[in-house]
């Protein structure tokens, strides 16, 4: 079911070794501990402005009632939202930067992403609306659901779980 890699040479020599500076532009992943977050800063107030311009048309004026995913809502709300479901705040920065706005993905500057992140965290009452969001503060934001998440507990065999 697998090829015999024992017989392979140490290196085939196909492909090109790249320098760190060639990697930087692509290495956009952000870890829960903040690794990968760029320089920059954001706050909810500026985020609210950008949000109205670039996001509200799809997600609703207040992060609810839009045609697409509801983003704001607490545990009383049925839909999964950032406030009632997401376990890590860093995910928000990472995801907005790579994928939003849906109709112009990859168009936001890092500061804009920080602003929007601050706004959406604040709209979900996860941070004070005065908090500056940056590579130091973002990983520290407490997400209420975090400890509900467990790794897969199903195993091979007869268990139905």
């Amino acid at each position, binding site marked *: *079911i697998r090829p015999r890699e024992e017989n392979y040479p140490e*290196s085939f020599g196909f492909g090109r070794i790249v320098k760190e500076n060639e990697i930087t532009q692509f290495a956009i992943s952000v870890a829960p501990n903040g690794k990968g977050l760029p320089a920059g800063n954001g706050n909810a107030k500026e985020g609210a402005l950008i949000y109205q311009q670039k996001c509200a048309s799809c997600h609703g004026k207040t992060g609810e009632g839009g045609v697409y995913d509801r983003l704001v809502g607490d545990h009383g709300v049925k839909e999964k939202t950032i406030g009632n479901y997401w376990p890590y705040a860093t995910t928000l920065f990472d995801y907005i930067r790579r*994928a939003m706005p849906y109709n112009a993905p990859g168009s936001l500057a890092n500061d804009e992403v920080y602003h929007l992140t601050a706004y959406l965290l604040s709209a979900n009452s996860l941070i004070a609306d005065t908090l500056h969001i940056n590579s130091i503060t973002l990983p520290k934001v407490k997400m209420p659901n975090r400890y509900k998440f467990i790794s897969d507990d199903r195993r091979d065999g007869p268990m139905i779980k």
Partner: protein
Amino acid sequence: VEDSLGRVTQVARQTLPTPITNATKIQGAPPGILGTRSVFEKPVKLPSFTSARTPLQDLYGTITPADLHFERDHAGVPFIDPSKHDLLIHGMVEKPMSFTLEDIKRFPVFTRICFIECSGNFRTGKTTLTPQEICGLTSQSEWTGVMLSTLFREVGIKSKASWFIAEGGDAALMTRSIPLNKAFDDAMIVYAQNGEAIRPEQGYPLRLLLPGWEGNTQIKWLKRIELTDQPYMTREETSKYTEPIAGGKIRQFSFVMDARSIITFPSYPLQISRGWVEIRGIAWSGRGRIRRVEVSVDAGRSWQEASLQEPILRKAHTAFRYLWHWNGRATLIMSRAIDETGYRQPSYRELVKARGSKGGYHFNPITVWEINGNGEVFLVNDR
């Protein structure tokens, strides 16, 4: 045939006389550069805005024709020029490297047949659902590419690495964290499907193949792999593709697709006649081989062993068949898969009880069909 974009995908034999009276008395079409589908056959996927479902009830055997392989995307199907699509592998590696598609094709080749299934592959709530609607987000191909471990050998994985992040070149830069173990088990980077280059809808020119794991982890249009010592908790593994389970917990990194089966014949909206009916379907498990499929034709009171089509491959759709003489009386028929680890596909009620949830990801209950006295077939919900 037009697809949902209005693109013409196939036009055959427009020059032939209509009506055709007798094909034995008129020369047919000469050989061509590409074969065509008969105009009398129109299998199609069922598209929504984010997915298109395979018409399981219209297929034969176990290979899904490439143009009928299900689709699910998070930002549409990108248009990629393969000469500009390099794969970057970096992070906790000895040698960060970039590979062109040509580079990747030079490495030792591996080929395997397996299914890919979306973890959200369950629909219910109506008696008038077809197999395509119930669970058409699973398809099977013969995949060809390179073992991921072969590329990892080339770059040299640092001993502290325990996960890798896979990223697509679509407009969502779709990203998932994958335990490094999978790379040394059976993960591949594939560039071919059923003998030809992988189709754009399946990740052209490169996709990650994680046999038996949920579809969304098998990153399409694969562009970047970063070796890390932790999962990155991307949106697709936190907000999406996690499932609330019993006890108020939320299950994350639920990669493996549990064993499942479905009777695709007879199924809604068919009507059967009295007499011999070969019950047919497919069974599959993300954990390995299907060991056994059992069929009940008496509403679950007794179960009979179905015959399985060989070869029975690991993590592969396996066709099953059971010969039944229908006496004309109303009944319920159903199938359950048992895999080589001993997992037995549960009923809907068993699953609801175990999960504390009536659906969601990884929902793989037995599909029950009602045969009424007229031989009409309807889906039974909640049983």
